[in-house]
């Protein structure tokens, strides 16, 4: 069957990321959540924004800033808002960040660096993925230079897709084209897979085209 060509997807609206939405990382943090400066576990979803300057299409390189040797790379699934506040489709992302230990202050300088969001080739219709409930069985694999580094199972979310979507829309309406990423998982030790200049990172999931981004040093 010939599939008609469609232009590569790029987010048209605001892209939100979610912190601490995988059970493993939440559990690792739990003993510290009541300590300063946090003083209590988070109640509302902890969100951040990936600004438009971060968007890098699949197949394009992501540049590391000078004096940044390695970055965290994270597989994430983003839900794309359609009309009427419903989820229309889903997209794979490579959510890149400069590693940071503290979750107290907003993470703009760590997360909103030029190029720091690899964007999957296509927004896949939610219906083709079994709807929001079907996402619970989705497994995403992350490879660095062809070597398996992480398996992310959406069954391990703290707030599942439907719950997160509802809890976020309760205070800020996701408009047509806005994207809500469900979160990123950590490795057993709490860190995330890293990439350095010269590495290639692939993110794979059933039903999606592979998301591939090479990492390069920043041109001087």
């Amino acid at each position, binding site marked *: 069957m010939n599939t008609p060509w469609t232009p590569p997807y*790029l*987010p*048209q*609206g*605001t*892209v*939100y990321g979610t*912190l*601490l939405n995988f059970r493993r990382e939440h559990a690792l943090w739990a003993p510290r959540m009541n300590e300063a*400066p*946090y*003083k*209590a576990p*988070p*109640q*509302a*979803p*902890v*969100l*951040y*924004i990936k*600004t*438009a*300057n*971060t*968007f890098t299409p699949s197949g394009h390189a992501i540049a590391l*800033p000078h004096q940044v040797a390695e970055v965290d790379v994270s597989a994430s699934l983003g839900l794309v808002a359609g009309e009427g506040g419903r989820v229309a489709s889903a997209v794979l992302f490579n959510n890149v960040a400069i590693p940071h230990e503290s*979750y*107290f*202050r*907003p*993470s*703009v*300088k760590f997360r*909103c*660096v*030029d190029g720091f969001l690899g964007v999957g080739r296509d927004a896949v219709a939610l219906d083709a993925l079994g709807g929001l409930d079907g996402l619970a069985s989705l497994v995403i694999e992350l490879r660095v230079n062809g070597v398996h580094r992480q398996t992310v199972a959406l069954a391990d979310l703290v707030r599942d897709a439907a719950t997160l979507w509802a809890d976020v829309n309760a*205070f*800020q*309406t*996701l*408009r047509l084209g*806005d994207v809500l990423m469900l979160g990123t998982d950590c490795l057993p030790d709490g860190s995330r897979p890293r990439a350095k200049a010269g590495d290639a990172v692939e993110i794979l999931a059933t039903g999606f085209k592979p998301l591939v981004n090479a990492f390069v040093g920043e041109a001087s």
Partner: protein
Amino acid sequence: MKRARIAWAGAVHDAIEADGQLELLTPAFKGRRVTFDEVVWLPPLAPVDRARTVLALGLNYADHAKELDFKAPEEPLAFVKGESSLIGHRAFTVRPDNVQFMHYECELAVVIGKPAKRVKKADALQYVAGYTVANDYAIRDYLENWYRPNLKVKNRDTCTPIGPWLVDAADVADPMNLALTTTVNGQLTQQGNTKDMIFDVPTLIEYFSGFMTLMPGDLILTGTPDGVVDCQPGDVIVTSIEHIGELMNTITAAPKAA
């Protein structure tokens, strides 16, 4: 020149201020003047072809930092907002039920005019298209210490009035010496001056453009001085900045659940 974006007669129009009226720029009505009361005021921002970056500053006036019991930051305390929280002049902002402390924040808003990457402080103002007034409401009941200030406090629907005018940068001789005031139902509650910013506009542009490319239409809300008070449904809040504009907003109660 003072530029506005309005809805009038079934369509959206760009307009400029002329003798206390709005002069339409739309070709079909070019030169026609309408009164301020005839229109719906939208955020004074042209649409952009990618998500608009809306940066905002916390604790950027020494007195406000003190009021909120924090030490002044050593680098800008920046957070990002979504464009969907923006709303125009003379709009309604919703106060949720059962909250104790919802306050305005009168802020000078910088609108970027050309792509800015690794801009030096000395050149930074060349990258500014103009200035407007923002009211960056916060609901402190929802404050949590995770990526604080968190989005439930700062990114709510209707909670970022902005406008009425985009004033061309060329018409603002010194953006770092503008008086700010806020009134609640006509009573003066907040007073300050942009000269008291901890990180001034050129410094902020240098800081942000050092790691992220700012694009035309992107916004920087530069923080608020001392003097924030709780606002209740029915309160009329006017946030004003000298030479830039007077932004009016009315607080309304949340709709009752059906």
